[in-house]
């Protein structure tokens, strides 16, 4: 067993080594894979805040991932086609500026999280799982049946959005943006979970009656966490559109919700780096087992069962000691 902080640093070094290896070996595909891991880790980090620290199993995070993705896709496609989003009562143009798109994606998916959370957080357990799933499916079918942005076929964006001073079409530059955002997100989450708010959130997970009895409204705490969570997952969605230069309703489907959940559980719930480890393992399995057999997900399921049955705290729980401060 090693200390969790050391383990986290090793994770960062391993993650960074992949795109550098890609540069040296001139294998841009490695860089793309590493970028994918980083983006999915951000999505998982968002979910981890409610699932891990808050104890709410959201099966609807695809909604926020997809909404973030569509915000990015819609804004960019309007800008690239020189066609304003609305013309009346005032003109709103699209944009290809990441510095506008990313905060906007977070704002809009956070807003949706607020609406969905307000309705869902009155329930718990299986009901919460089902109602979040239902909302995500509503968004999914809405995207399918909305022809303006490609409907079922999805929406192509032929250029990545811009970032001042960087050529985002260069894989390594784009990786760097995503990586910095991941570190930033993890830093924010670590501050939140160790703050007064984090203490209340983790307490409400275990004993909401007690939390109410000391004068704190548990639902308010959980709703705020849900909004932050949705915004972070939305950020990941926006980056994912940029990575693929394409967004389709499939990012909104329940498979996506399930996959984000798998990252968190595989890596370790309520562990800061859990989603990163989970996402990395997922992509590694997809690449290597996927090359050997079409049914690689059987082995993913197998590993997931082993982790859930025998490793409390996921992969990180097996390897690293939990950091406690008090």
């Amino acid at each position, binding site marked *: 067993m090693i200390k969790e902080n050391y383990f986290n640093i090793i994770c960062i070094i391993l993650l960074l080594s992949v795109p550098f290896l890609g540069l040296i070996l001139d294998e841009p595909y490695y860089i793309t894979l590493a970028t994918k891991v980083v983006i999915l880790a951000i999505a998982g980090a968002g979910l981890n805040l409610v699932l891990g620290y808050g104890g709410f199993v959201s099966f609807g995070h695809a909604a926020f991932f997809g909404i973030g993705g569509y915000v990015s896709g819609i804004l960019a496609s309007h800008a690239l086609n020189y066609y304003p989003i609305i013309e009346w009562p005032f003109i709103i143009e699209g944009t290809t500026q990441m510095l506008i798109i990313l905060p906007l994606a977070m704002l809009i998916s956070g807003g949706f999280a607020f609406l969905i959370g307000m309705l869902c957080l009155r329930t718990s357990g299986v009901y919460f799982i089902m109602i979040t799933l239902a909302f995500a499916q509503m968004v999914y079918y809405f995207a399918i049946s909305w022809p303006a942005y490609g409907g079922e076929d999805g929406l192509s964006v032929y250029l990545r959005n811009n970032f001042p001073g960087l050529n985002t079409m260069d894989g390594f530059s784009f990786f760097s943006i995503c990586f910095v955002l991941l570190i930033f997100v993890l830093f924010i989450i670590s*501050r*939140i979970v*160790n*703050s*007064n*708010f*984090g*203490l*209340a959130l*983790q*307490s409400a997970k*275990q*004993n909401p*009656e*007690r*939390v*109410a*009895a*000391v*004068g*704190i*409204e*548990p639902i308010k*705490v959980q709703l*705020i966490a849900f909004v932050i969570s949705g915004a972070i997952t939305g950020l990941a969605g926006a980056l994912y559109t940029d990575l693929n230069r394409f967004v389709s309703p499939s990012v909104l489907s329940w498979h996506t919700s399930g996959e984000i959940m798998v990252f968190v559980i595989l890596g370790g719930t309520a562990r800061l780096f859990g989603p990163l480890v989970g996402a990395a393992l997922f992509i590694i399995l997809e690449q290597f087992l996927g090359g050997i057999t079409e049914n690689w997900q059987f082995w993913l399921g197998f590993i997931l069962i082993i982790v859930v049955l025998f490793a409390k705290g996921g992969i990180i729980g097996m390897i690293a000691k939990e950091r*406690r*401060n*008090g």
Partner: protein
Amino acid sequence: MVSPILSIQNLSKKFGAVIANEDVSIDLYQDEIHGLIGPNGAGKSTLIKQISGEIKQDSGKIVLGENEISNQPVFQRAKMGLARSFQVSSIIPSITVLENVILAIQGNLGQTFKFWKPVSKNQELINAAHGYLDQVDLKLRMFILASELSHGERRKLEISMALALEPKVFLLDEPMAGLGAAGSKVMTKQLAKLKSRAPILLIEHDMDAIFALADRISVLVYGRIIATGTVDEIRSNANVKEAYLGSEDL
């Protein structure tokens, strides 16, 4: 005329056809421990849940200080000065003893929605928590997880959390339950000290403790208060004797 700190007025609650509480009135004054006793199924738990806000009364009202709290949610009542302990100890098991008390302090001070500063570096909160833990002799155990506390220590932690709310009223639901003779003695002393901070509404099965501690006692039988009075009045009350006949020697 001194006005009561907590005034329960004509509270009634039915579950279907079952009458849990009927026309219950209790006044709690400054500097008193008011004992609430009654046989099993008399409606004590229902009454406490109505006072704390977990259950809504059918009729009647509850006034804390100047404010009516009958329609306030649980967290609001706690904020307004109602500190309760639970019949089955209710703590947050996965965090430390110290963090449990800090949670109560931040609840009282309304400091929950601070997202940036780590709790472990908030010396003000920590120092305050030390004080409340000291008062229940739990300071030496503050860095262990609350789940590792013994039953008696959990009781103490609950009292410490109640203190941290700096309440107007303590609502204590069987704080002696499961403590054993020695533990009960310690807790009895603890409660006598607590009384100087705020009045206590004490629900207790342990008759010896109630008679030793309480200034006044109300007796709840079949959902109704059949007698309220000093310890001696209750001891000699014919109705009370009848209600407890054969089960308890008063």
